[in-house]
């Protein structure tokens, strides 16, 4: 039982890193990206081919090195960012909103079918398998799993601290200004594309990192493991936790990954219809998104606003909650009224 929970929590931590990355792209910069799951998958593949060694026929894939895990993680993140820089350069240049989403959707399916059908790359449909061992071997099965869980938590914590720091920095503020009104941001000297692009690549780096962790969590990875539509589970996590708030995003990831795995475990799947369980899971996630949007669109911990309180620190947010979206404007301060301001 403890092992079971460790596995679920490890998975939640890994996807928490991915959710932090996607939230930078969507929550901060406002770009509803659909290709982040490909960056995650690329992180898995690259980490595997760098660590699991040469393929033995009929299995085939490129490289097949035996690098130390941490070095492989570093290279994977670099490869993923390089790859995202191409897609981002095309999609972010002039496309926004639904046009941006469609472009990234096209990109992710192109990658998906390429990986699935071009066997020499990552062994196509059958995928890769092999042990990625970040601890260097010599541990018992249990010790390994607990250690790896601790490692994932540590990476999630580090990712969270980095993202939180950026979120509350002048950089994070500028990214949100670009999200709210690009023209006004340009009027005040901000390079809209470059701002969005940097945010996009930082988010992609986190996606690649999370893929590297996942590579060590699972022993095999094939296209069935990363249907691009899985990204909506992450968007559900972000919506539940609080779009634009790193703390909320981590919370949402744990709620959705732990809560949903648990909930859907008890859904009866009659042997005649084994697909019922997974289908219900998708339906429940859709329902969750709709309910959150309807009743608490900001999420459980909504995006935090920058106030004049210079004592604010990232570690005290729970103790001293900040004003949130629903701040009332005092009547007395609005002696000036106008008719419609459109002309």
């Amino acid at each position: 039982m403890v092992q079971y929970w460790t596995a679920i929590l490890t998975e939640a931590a890994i996807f928490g890193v991915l959710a932090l990355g996607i939230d930078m792209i969507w929550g901060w910069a406002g770009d509803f990206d659909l290709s982040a799951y490909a960056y995650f998958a690329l992180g898995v593949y690259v980490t595997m081919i760098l660590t699991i060694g040469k393929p033995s026929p009929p299995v085939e894939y490129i490289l097949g090195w035996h690098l130390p895990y941490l070095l492989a993680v570093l290279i994977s993140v670099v490869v993923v960012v390089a790859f995202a820089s191409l897609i981002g350069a095309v999609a972010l240049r002039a496309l926004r909103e639904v046009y941006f989403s469609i472009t990234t959707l096209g990109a992710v399916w192109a990658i998906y079918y390429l990986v699935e059908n071009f066997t020499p790359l990552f062994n196509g449909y059958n995928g890769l398998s092999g042990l990625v061992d970040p601890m260097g071997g010599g541990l018992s099965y249990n010790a390994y799993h607990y250690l790896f869980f601790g490692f994932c938590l540590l990476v999630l914590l580090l990712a969270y601290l980095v993202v939180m720091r950026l979120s509350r920095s002048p950089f994070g503020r500028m990214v949100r200004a670009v999200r709210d009104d690009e023209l006004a941001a340009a009027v005040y000297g901000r390079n809209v594309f470059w701002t969005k692009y940097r945010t996009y690549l930082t988010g992609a780096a986190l996606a690649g990192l999370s893929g590297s962790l996942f590579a060590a969590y699972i022993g095999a990875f094939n296209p069935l493991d990363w249907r691009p539509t899985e990204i909506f589970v992450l968007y559900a996590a972000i919506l539940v936790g609080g779009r634009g708030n790193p703390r909320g995003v981590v919370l949402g990831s744990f709620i959705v990954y732990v809560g949903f795995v648990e909930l859907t475990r008890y859904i009866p799947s009659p042997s005649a219809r084994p697909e019922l369980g997974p289908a219900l899971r998708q339906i429940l996630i859709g329902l969750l998104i709709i309910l959150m949007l309807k009743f608490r669109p900001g999420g459980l911990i909504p995006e935090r606003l920058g106030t004049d309180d210079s004592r604010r620190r990232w570690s005290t947010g729970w103790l001293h909650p900040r004003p949130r979206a629903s701040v009332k404007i005092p009547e007395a301060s609005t002696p000036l009224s106008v008719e419609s301001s459109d002309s």
Partner: protein
Amino acid sequence: MTGAALLEIRDISKSFGGVVAVNRCSMTVREGTVVGLIGPNGAGKSSVIDLVTGFEHPDSGSVRFDGTELVGRRPDVISRMGIIRTFQSPREWRDLTVIDNVRIGRSNLARESLFRSLVFARGLRREEAKETGEIRAILKDYRLDDVRNSRAVNLSGGQKRLLEFARIAAARPRLTILDEPMGGVNPVLGERIGEAIRDLKRAGSTVIVVEHNLPFIEKTCDEVVVMDLGSVIAQGAFGDLRDNSRVVDAYLGNDDE
């Protein structure tokens, strides 16, 4: 008020499809003046602003700001040279707080670097904390101090207009271009906006105001430029233009309100 030429527009033209919006338009704006840009609807006033600020590129002609050519540059580059403009409706950053809206006016790209935000977060926070007093003073000036910690989207239409001016005051541009700042504004707030423009001038900014409200223009501007059909038809002091028959025709003979 007789400064050197700050903005020189020479023979710029722009067509959209078959429609000539700006037709060999030329004007000079001297440093330290408040210039009213008037003309009937469709005269090309807003198009000229777009051409100057890089949101549109002219088919021909040149725009020089303090001797530097602006044509072909991006809006953000032009802005960093010291030109801030507004649009016909207020464009606040809706989900940022009022104080953050104004802080961005004062902040700069060096401070917003990804690397510095990551590595020198504490120093940046100190840097911003030092500015807080000044930002609060600007907010008080525009009666926005009480609402400084609420999201800009919650402001009334009039407060959004004032927020635009607070942002500009924080940014301290050399040239401010206001596109119909009085649109949908009541008389009391109108007074305040006139005052805000005089404050900008006092702070050393040159101002161009596009506006239909002629009494407002007369009171606020040192000089007036009249446009019709994409070209400048007159330029001078307001009093001198009142008797100019072309100006009167343009305003009364066309479809103006």
